[in-house]
């Protein structure tokens, strides 16, 4: 295994995702750099939706799929995260029933099969904790597409444009799906926390 010239190696760290992926068209090994940059965040997102064990497997599947399709990556997109989250979302979609089952279990019992074993919730999250069950019920009732949009924005911190790129839908569709999802969640929470809802209505 011959090492690349020294200055080439140093430059890799400064390359954006697009340049790294382009380089991997010639030199496949370079693609591992994409894993090193993004696997942690992708894993966290998948684990948040399906639990840590499925995440171990699916994060591997995500990057394998990305590697196999790297030649169709649009080099104008300097950030690979939407592309990667899109692949992950597609894989998560195949486990839709399991995801909904776990959300319903949380809604019914208050015990979350996904985050069981995590350390106690911080005090500051008490307000969220008390509506966890209603929230889980609401998420379970969303359509898969609406849930994907809502969670890419809420959990993966993608922007509307990035979410649109990830799911390969127009930005307008992202906005309308997000609004629909938020309305449904709000309805599910009913009058649980009038103050916050009032804040929302007055924005």
């Amino acid at each position, binding site marked *: 295994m011959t090492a690349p010239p020294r200055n080439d190696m140093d430059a890799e760290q400064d390359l954006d995702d697009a340049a790294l992926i382009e380089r991997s068209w010639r030199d496949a090994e370079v693609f*591992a750099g994409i894993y090193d940059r993004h696997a942690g965040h992708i894993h966290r997102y998948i684990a948040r939706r399906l639990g840590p064990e499925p995440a171990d497997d699916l994060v591997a599947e995500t*990057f394998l799929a990305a590697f196999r399709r790297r030649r169709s990556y649009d080099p104008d997109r300097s950030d690979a995260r939407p592309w990667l989250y899109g692949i992950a979302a597609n894989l998560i979609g195949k486990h839709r029933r399991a995801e909904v089952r776990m959300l319903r279990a949380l809604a019914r019992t208050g015990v979350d099969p996904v985050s069981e074993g995590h350390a106690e919730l911080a005090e500051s999250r008490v307000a969220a904790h008390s509506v966890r069950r209603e929230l889980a019920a609401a998420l379970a009732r969303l359509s898969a597409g609406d849930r994907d949009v809502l969670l890419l924005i809420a959990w993966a911190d993608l922007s509307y444009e990035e979410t649109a790129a990830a799911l390969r839908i127009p930005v307008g569709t992202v906005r309308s799906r997000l609004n629909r999802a938020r309305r449904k969640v709000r309805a599910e929470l009913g009058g649980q926390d009038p103050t916050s809802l009032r804040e929302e209505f007055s924005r």
Partner: protein
Amino acid sequence: MSELDLVRELRAESGLPGPERLASGRARLSAAIAEETERAAGSPQGAVSLRVRSVGGTPRKRLTIGVGLLATAAVVAVLAEPAKAPLSPPKTRDTAAVQLLDAASVTVAAKTSKEPGSLQWIYTRSVDREQEQPTQAYDGWITFDGSRTAYLQNDKLTVNRENTLPAGSNTSPLGRYDANTTPETAYNALASLPSDPKALLAEISRHVSSAPQTGIFVSASANESTKEFEYLAQLIWNAYAAAPGTALAAVFKTMAAMPGITVEQGVPDAVGRPSVAVSPDGGRTELLLDPATYQVVGLRTTSGGVNQGGAGPGTGAVLYSLALVQVTMVSGPGRK
């Protein structure tokens, strides 16, 4: 708080995964990268065809797990003699193997394993498959220092005191381990090894070539590199109860630097679990690791062998496969 904020708060306690969680995904990607690179480069040189003859007189030393002597011998015995042509290792190092073993060393280094007390009882369940023999499962118990063992037969528990052989004039930890292989001597032998892979390999090489062959069960006609690999594989197997994480990491790094080392994913162990097989000789001698934790789960010997026309390790018949299914610290013999 808006409902979007509430959604943000849900399961917000999940943090970023540690490197050990991401290691297996990295290894799988590395394997795919290596596979593509090899395909692009064309088939490797040195395809060797292996003619296998069975040799009647070669004694087979077996792991007598049924009497709780799991720690006294770890065996990889080759039933057949290798072909007349010497095995030539591939000229370039298998990048998938190097990357997997690097990932393994990172993963195991992160695990701290406390050394158990000398009289700590350890339960093991192992499964033994030999060609044309029925699969056998063994439950055994042993104390960390090997001074007591126990086994179940017809629901009756038999506890034995073992005579620990005197170490003799050889007082090095490796020597003591060779003379009397117990979880404790294996632990100490591992702990005594240098952390630098080159120095580790040099020490093992010296030890294997100078030590008498009794007590070290390696293939009689294997080349030096295979003997060293087998010695290390057996050592980490024998340290199934406890092993210093940094020493295990050093062993994996040493294996990564061995010429001709290959890995294969999805290899079934004796109970059918998909494992990662690490081999110094193209798949004939295999150390099986858990694909997520890189713990040793088995040892396997096949009649296969070398890269044949770029297809990867030969798919020979499995001659012998031993799987470690469970290792548990227990309060006494007979307990699981």
